[in-house]
């Protein structure tokens, strides 16, 4: 028998259950996050307008760059200001 040394992080991923999706958006605030990809805003502007037509409150956010994860402060801000988030990828 051979013993090999584990080259990985040895972290068994713990699966965190996602929050349940709401049945309706009425009364909720929707966060719309632009990741700073070109033309992502075109799509998100349309989405924002549609939501507002239905009387749903929205808040807009933007990551400083698409090359890095959102800064902690921004993630925390979004987490405290909205109930659900829509993030737009582009290309």
């Amino acid at each position, binding site marked *: 028998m051979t*013993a*090999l040394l584990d080259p990985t992080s040895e972290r068994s991923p713990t699966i965190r259950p996602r929050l349940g999706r709401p049945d309706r958006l009425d009364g909720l605030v929707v966060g719309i996050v632009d990741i700073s990809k070109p033309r992502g805003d075109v799509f998100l502007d349309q989405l924002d307008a549609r939501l507002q037509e239905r009387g749903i409150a929205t808040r807009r956010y933007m990551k400083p760059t698409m090359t890095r994860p959102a800064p902690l402060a921004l993630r925390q801000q979004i987490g405290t200001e909205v109930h659900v988030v829509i993030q737009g990828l582009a290309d």
Partner: protein
Amino acid sequence: MDAPHDGLVAVVKRDCPTCELTAPVLGTLAREAGLTVYSQDDPSFPAEVAARRHDADLDISHRLGIEIVPTLIRFDGGREVARTYGWDRAEWERVAGRPGLGLDLPAMRPGCGAKNVEPGILERLKIRHGETGITARRIAIGSGEDEIEAMFDRGWSDGLPLVPPTEERVLRMLSGTIRDPQEVVGLVPSDLVPATVEKIAINAVMAGCKPEYLPVVLAAVEAVLEEPFAMHGVLATTMYVGPVVIVNGPIRRAIGMNARGNVLGQGNRANATIGRALQLVIRNIGGGRPQEVDRATLGNPGKYTYCFAEDEEGSCWEPLSVERGIAPGKSAVTVFAGFGLQGVVDQKSRDPESLSRSFAECMKAIYNVKLAPACDAIVVIAPEHERTYREAGWTKQQVIDAFHRLTEIDGDDLVAGARGMAEGGPPSLAGRRIGKFRKGGLLIVRAGGGAGMFSGIIGGWSASGERGSAPVTREIRE
């Protein structure tokens, strides 16, 4: 088998002329002073000692910390009180507490290396005695299981077979650095897991590195984990890029890296395995795998390994590392988020302006002739092209300035739709001159074989510089 609690102990081996020389003295001490003799190799040596013992598994030698044979030790109540090694009459008389030893021998002879500290044997002894300090989880592979296949099955491989990271191999790899195996080198994306020297050494073993490559691997890992390199983005992007490693300084030659013919190709162990080890660290420690966090559309073959050395001895310019702030004579790595190779063939230019124009026209094509600024780039200048600059007396800065000047593009041609191509920028580009590269975004490396007027361009990431990845240079701690 335990060493005696009291009295004299000697450790010898037949394969040592000094041990042979001292055999009569050992016989005398055994008969008259109760000396216990352990032979590391031949159980019939020394014939002069009747009750000699064979330290076949070298456990006694290891526990006594023998480095040189012969070694003579005196114990008193289980405690070592005197020791000498090699043959030195005065020292032997002191340790043995008896005058007149070996009067017919020369006064002094150096000893030989002990068998228990030979490479390969010492590692096995440390493992058997639980002294390695290695903390990684042990994964048992069944006797009927193929180790190579087992590693593929566990997802550790980049697609090519790996060297099995046994404790013995990892211990040997760790001998390539004086750094503490548990030192954390940085947090590896995408999982942001602390990478210890030990974990990196395990991956270096799997990549096929020799221990003396480890300092280069460690420096490369440190460099890509620096914030300006944005390793997370380099990993996650849909674009082609991966880390390209350029090595400068004395370590290149010490470990036999290739900086000349086929420098960017196959065939050199150090070049191949250092770059591979870096990728395995990202994969196995950070959890960055293709079609998971690595979203590359095409990737590039350099994502298996992309590492080479600069031919500093053949260059008329200062090394890349010196240009980037490392002291001359120091070894360093520079990491660059790059991909592939675009050739620059010019067999006719004999003056630097003409040659620079050739380079520039080729460079304008990176990504798309309609895109500027495009990305950073490394220009690998081969000897027969460098000669033209050398003979004209051009400094590296002059070459870089010429490249920037000659890769400026008429903004009218860059506007979306211009020249019959929908790709391009906004109308505001019209009437302006636009640089293909950001200032500071061109690196020149002199490398390659002596024959062939063929240089190359290693393109970078569209998110080059502060908004994405910038090259990082780091000194190698040997």
